[in-house]
């Protein structure tokens, strides 16, 4: 869940730009 | 968008036993506001669920390798269909001057074609007597709204809600505390606070008129 509103629905290279951390 | 993020109990997402009995999201008349509100019937319309959204401004989702603009998180929770049926019973009572009627003629709404599914929900036929008087003529049953029974039923709902509020540690007092406020004394809410709060919660599911009657009761 993002703390911002992204005005787009569709593909995004999430794994390329973000790292998961617990 | 073609996807939503929701939290639901298993019962809401059980696979259908037949092809034409899949879970269905549908709009029904909100018993409190009278407005269209989204509900879910699970497979075979065994159970009714209400749909609420955790909705704050400025949220979106990353779902796998996609971004979704709609930042709502939907909560699907079981709901007693009697609340919705109650609305139609009360309406019929006003319009038909207290006549006994078959339920399938009462629970009808031209704006909400899925409304009759409420009568299919498990336990409805057995528990309708909590809110209505019943007459049997031959093999057919007829029902009429009963305020006395309904208030008694709603009082039980309030009491159950009080129990749930206590066991979940929900703060119900009129005073507002910061979540970081630490008191040396344990903050205890009065019984009246609990009942008032629970009445308020139950009132979200009944008409304003009935809520006032319940408050007096």
């Amino acid at each position: 869940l993002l703390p911002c509103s992204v005005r787009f629905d569709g593909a995004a290279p999430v794994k390329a730009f973000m790292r998961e951390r617990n | 968008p073609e996807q939503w993020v929701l939290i639901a109990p298993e019962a809401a997402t059980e696979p259908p036993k037949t092809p034409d009995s899949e879970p269905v999201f549908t709009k029904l008349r909100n018993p409190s506001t009278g407005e269209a509100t989204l509900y879910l019937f699970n497979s075979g319309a065994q159970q009714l669920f209400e749909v609420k959204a955790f909705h704050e401004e400025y949220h979106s989702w990353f779902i796998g390798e996609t971004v979704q603009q709609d930042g709502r998180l939907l909560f699907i929770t079981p709901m007693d269909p009697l609340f919705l049926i109650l609305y139609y019973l009360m309406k019929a009572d006003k319009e038909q001057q207290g006549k006994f009627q078959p339920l399938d003629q009462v629970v009808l709404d031209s704006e909400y074609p899925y409304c009759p599914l409420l009568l299919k929900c498990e336990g409805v036929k057995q528990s309708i007597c909590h809110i209505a008087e019943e007459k049997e003529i031959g093999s057919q049953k007829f029902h009429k709204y009963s305020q006395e029974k309904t208030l008694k039923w709603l009082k039980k709902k309030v009491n159950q809600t009080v129990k749930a509020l206590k066991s979940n540690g929900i703060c119900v007092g009129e005073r507002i505390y910061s979540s970081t406020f630490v008191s040396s004394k344990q903050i205890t809410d009065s019984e009246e606070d609990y009942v008032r709060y629970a009445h308020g919660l139950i009132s979200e599911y009944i008409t304003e008129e009935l809520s006032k009657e319940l408050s007096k009761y």
Partner: protein
Amino acid sequence: MALAELERDPAGGGRFSSPVPPSCRSRPCVLGVDEAGRGPVLGPMVYAICYCPKEQLQELEAMGVADSKTLSESERERRFGLLEAAGELLGWALQVLPPQHISACMQQRAKYNLNELSHDTATELIQHALDNGVQVAEVFVDTVGPAEKYEAKLRGRFPGLEVTVRPKADALFSIVSAASICAKVARDRAVKCWNFTEDLGDDIDRDYGSGYPNDPKTKEWLRRNLQPVFGFPGLVRFSWGTAQELLRHGGVPVTWADEDPSQDPSAPTSVLSYFSRSSPRRSPHRFFQERSLKPVAEL
């Protein structure tokens, strides 16, 4: 060799320095400060100091470090090699400011502009030399902004030192020129060996030209590597006008809860909006309000 650590992780930035020559601990030294990479829209900004005993300045000049701006990249590399080899004579230190750090400073709520960042970085490097026992007597600093104000600021900060701030100081003072070489070489290597923290695949596009905003090759690279949701890789300074313009046109609009309303071009709220004309609807129960739970009319 000295910059091997920087080449391993240029995106990480940080401070890199040579050992302090013993002579610099016992003799009064001159110290030069310069920067590299102020203008480009790509890559880090590098601040460098170079210092040596005052009496050994001529030896420094003999290495041909004067007029570093006129040198080609390979010539700069060669001169840097000479400086490295003269470890008994002089020392150096670098502060590498990654592009994301520059962007964050310039865009944070309490704005920290590039000039302030530059001055503070230079100040920290001078202090670093002092903290490591260098007997700094005179400081020479290159500047693009007003020299007098900056000079007064540094004199105030370092009252015991003779401070000279001049535009184009690298052409006037060989110690500044030496610092300039260190800064430029470090930046060139950082950009060349840039480790993209983003997983952009094996064929990362490194054909970014000079990195200056008016370089068509750089602009083309920016257009090719603009991802509508995430923007650019971290190599790019998002706070640069060029990057912001491209994002405005090619990026997806994103709104944050704490965006400054004074930047919103829409008209101020009408006073009438505070007076409701319609009868108030019953508000949801506190339980739902506190948890931002709302009924759903439509999916």
